[in-house]
C-alpha cells in the first residue's frame, strides 16, 4: 500500500460562543466600522424575519422560510459580494438579496405569491430563488462559465443547505467547477436539518466540506455564527474566484433556529434541548457581546436601531400590502418572448374569465 493522496479539512473560527476571541483577530476588526455594520444588518434581518412570520400568521403572506440563525452567513456574504458578482440563491437568502439591492416590498411580493417579486431591475443578473433543491448550484456553474469565457473578473456565489449536498446537482456542480476551474463559491448553510432529516442522516462524512475533495477543489469549514471567520473565508474565496484561481466550497456551520417553514412544526421531530443549546451559539448575541466589550455598541444605540429598523420594515410592508394585483394576462405573456399564435385564444379566455361576469372573477 502506497499513500498517493492526502487531504484535510480546516475549520475556521475566531469568536467563541460567548463573544471572546479564540485567536489573534484580523486587522480589519481593529476598527468598529465593518463589525458594527454586520451587527446592525443582522439585527435588521432578524426583526424582518419575525415580522414576516407575523404577517404569515395573520394571513397576509404565503408559506415562508425563516432565516433565523443564518443571519451571519447572509450578512457577510451580502457585504463582501460586489455588484458585479452574481448571486444564485436558494429560498433562505432574502437578507442577502436585500443587501444586494432587492427592495423589501419586492422581496415580500415573492413570498406573497407574486412573480413580480423576481422582476426587480435592482436584482441585476442575480437569479431568482431556486425552489427545486440544489439545481441552483449548476446554474451558478453556468454563470461562472460565461464569466470565464468572457475573461471577466467576477465571482459567482451560490448558497444551499446541508440537505442539498446529497443531491446529484450539487455534486455534479462541484465536479465541473473543478474541471473548468470556475469562479464560483458554493456556500453551504449547514443548519443541521433538512426539514425533519438531521445532518447525520444526510451523509456519513464528518464534514460536508470534504465533498470538495472528490471534485479536486478547495473546501473548508467555517463557524457560521462567527462573522469574523465568515469574513475571512468568504473574502479569500471571492478573491480566488475573481483572480481566476478557481472554486471554493465553504461549509458554514449554523443552526436552523426556526421551523423549516411556516408550514412546518419542528417540535414533531426535534428535541427542545438541542434547540436550546443552539440558541447559546447564535450569531447576533455573540457579536453583540464582542462589540459591547470593545465599547463599540451600547444599549442606547441598540434601542435607537431597533426603532429605526422597525420603521423601515413597516414601510416596506405597507408598500407590499398596497401593491395592485398582477394583470392576469401576465400568466401567459412572459412565457415566450413573443406570444405564439397558439396561445392567443387562451390569453383571451384568461382575460375574459377574470372580468366581471367571467368564470373566475372574484
Amino acid at each position, binding site marked *: 500500500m502506497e499513500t498517493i493522496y492526502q487531504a484535510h479539512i480546516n475549520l475556521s473560527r475566531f469568536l467563541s460562543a460567548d463573544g471572546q476571541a479564540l485567536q489573534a483577530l484580523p486587522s480589519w476588526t481593529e476598527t468598529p466600522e465593518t463589525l458594527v455594520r454586520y451587527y446592525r444588518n443582522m439585527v435588521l434581518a432578524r426583526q424582518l424575519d419575525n415580522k414576516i412570520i407575523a404577517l404569515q400568521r395573520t394571513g397576509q403572506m*404565503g*408559506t415562508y422560510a425563516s432565516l433565523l440563525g443564518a443571519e451571519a452567513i447572509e450578512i457577510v456574504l451580502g457585504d463582501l459580494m460586489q455588484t458585479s458578482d452574481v448571486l444564485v440563491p436558494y*429560498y433562505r437568502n432574502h437578507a442577502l438579496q436585500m443587501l444586494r439591492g432587492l427592495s423589501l416590498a419586492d422581496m415580500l411580493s415573492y413570498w*406573497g*405569491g*407574486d*412573480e413580480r417579486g423576481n422582476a426587480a431591475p435592482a436584482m441585476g443578473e442575480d437569479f431568482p430563488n431556486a*425552489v*427545486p*433543491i*440544489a439545481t441552483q448550484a449548476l446554474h451558478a456553474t453556468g454563470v461562472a462559465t460565461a464569466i470565464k469565457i468572457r475573461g471577466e473578473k467576477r465571482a459567482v456565489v451560490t448558497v444551499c443547505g446541508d*440537505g*442539498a449536498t*446529497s*443531491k*446529484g446537482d450539487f455534486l455534479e456542480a462541484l465536479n465541473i467547477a473543478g474541471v473548468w476551474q470556475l469562479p464560483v463559491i458554493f456556500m453551504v448553510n449547514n443548519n443541521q436539518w*433538512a*426539514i*425533519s*432529516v438531521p445532518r447525520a*442522516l*444526510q*451523509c456519513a462524512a464528518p464534514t460536508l466540506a470534504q465533498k470538495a475533495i472528490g471534485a479536486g477543489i478547495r473546501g473548508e469549514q467555517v463557524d457560521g455564527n462567527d462573522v469574523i471567520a465568515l469574513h475571512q473565508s468568504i473574502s479569500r474565496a471571492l478573491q480566488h474566484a475573481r483572480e481566476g484561481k478557481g472554486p471554493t466550497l465553504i461549509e458554514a456551520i449554523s443552526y436552523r433556529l426556526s421551523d423549516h417553514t411556516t*408550514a*412546518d412544526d419542528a417540535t*414533531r*421531530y426535534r428535541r427542545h434541548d438541542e434547540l436550546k443549546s443552539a440558541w447559546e451559539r447564535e450569531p447576533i448575541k455573540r457579536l453583540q457581546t464582542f462589540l459591547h466589550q470593545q465599547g463599540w455598541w451600547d444599549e442606547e444605540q441598540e434601542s435607537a436601531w431597533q426603532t429605526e429598523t422597525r420603521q423601515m420594515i413597516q414601510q416596506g410592508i405597507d408598500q407590499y400590502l398596497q401593491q395592485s*394585483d*398582477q394583470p*392576469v394576462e401576465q*400568466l*401567459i405573456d412572459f*412565457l415566450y418572448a413573443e406570444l405564439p399564435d*397558439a*396561445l392567443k385564444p*387562451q390569453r383571451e*379566455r*384568461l382575460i375574459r*374569465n*377574470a372580468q366581471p361576469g367571467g*368564470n*373566475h372573477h*372574484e
Partner: protein
Amino acid sequence: MSNTVTMVEAINLALKSEMRQDDSVIILGEDVGVNGGVFRATVDLKDEFGLKRVLDTPLAETMIAGLSVGMAAQGLKPVAEIQFMGFIFPTMEHLICHAARLRHRTRGRLHCPMVLRVPFGGGIHAPEHHSESTEALFAHIPGLRVVIPSSPARAYGLLLAAIRNPDPVVFMEPKRIYRLNAQTVEDTGKALPLDSCYTLREGSDITLISWGAMIKETLEAADQLAEQGVQCEVIDVVTLNPIDHETMLASVAKTGRCVIIHEAPKSCAVGAEISATLAERGLLNLRAPIQRVTGYDTVMPYYRMENHYLPNTADILEAVNSTLEFS
C-alpha cells in the same frame, strides 16, 4: 374497524394495513419517518414498523427512485414518497429506463413492484413548484401504471392494489382534496381494480370525464346540471396508463356528448388522448364536438393567481352548456 377518514388518512390506513400483512412493504422518502411526511400520509408508521421498514432518505430524488428499483428487483415492495410532483423530474430516468422496463428487458426474470407516491395539483396556496399536474409525462411511458384516486375510499382501495400490483405504479395524490369530504372507510384490506374507469354517476345527456381533484368540481357541475334536468354521466378515469378507453367509448356512445376536465395544461395532456380516441373510434356517435376544460398552456402561477389558472365549476358548466346547445 370502521373509520371516518379524509383521503390522506385513508392513504395512511392503506399503508398500515398492507405493512401489517406483508413484511416486504417498505416505506422510503424524505421526511417520511419521525415527521410522518409533510402531509402526514406516513404518520405513525415508523413507530409501528421501525427503522428497517420506514426509511428517511437523504435529499435526492434520483436516489429514491434508483434505490426503489434495486429493492423491488429483490422482491421487496418499496413505497417511495416524492414530496411534491414539482420534484419528481429527477426520478424520470429511473422510471422510464428501468422501473418500466425491468420485466420487459429481462423477459420476466426480474420485475419491479415499486410504488412512487406523489402529491400533486394546485389549490392549496403553496410555494412555486408545489402545485403542478404533470401526469401526462408518466401516462405516455409504456410499462408504468399511473393511478389517481379522488375519494378516501378509492384512495384506500387503489393504494392497496398499487402496492400488490407486480408492476411499477406512480400513485398520484390530489392534495387539494387530501382533507376534504371525509368518508367512512372500512379497513377490510380489499383492493380496488386498477385498469378500469370508475363511473361515479350514470346519466344519458352528456359524459363528463375527469380525474383527481377536478372530480370535485365535475360532480358539483353535475349536481347543478341535474337541477336543470340534465343527466350527466360522470367518469373518474382513475388509471391513466394503461387506460380503459372502452368504458368511456361506451358512455359517449350512449350520451353522444362529452366534456373532459383536467387541471394539467391542455396540450399533449391525457385529455388529448381521451378526446382523440373517442372521436377516432366513436366518430359517428358524437352529436357535438368534445370539449376539454383544462389548465392553460402556461406555467402554474404563484399562489396569488392560481385560481385564475385552475378550471372551476363555472368553466365546466360553460363547456357543458355549449356542448348541449350544439346541434
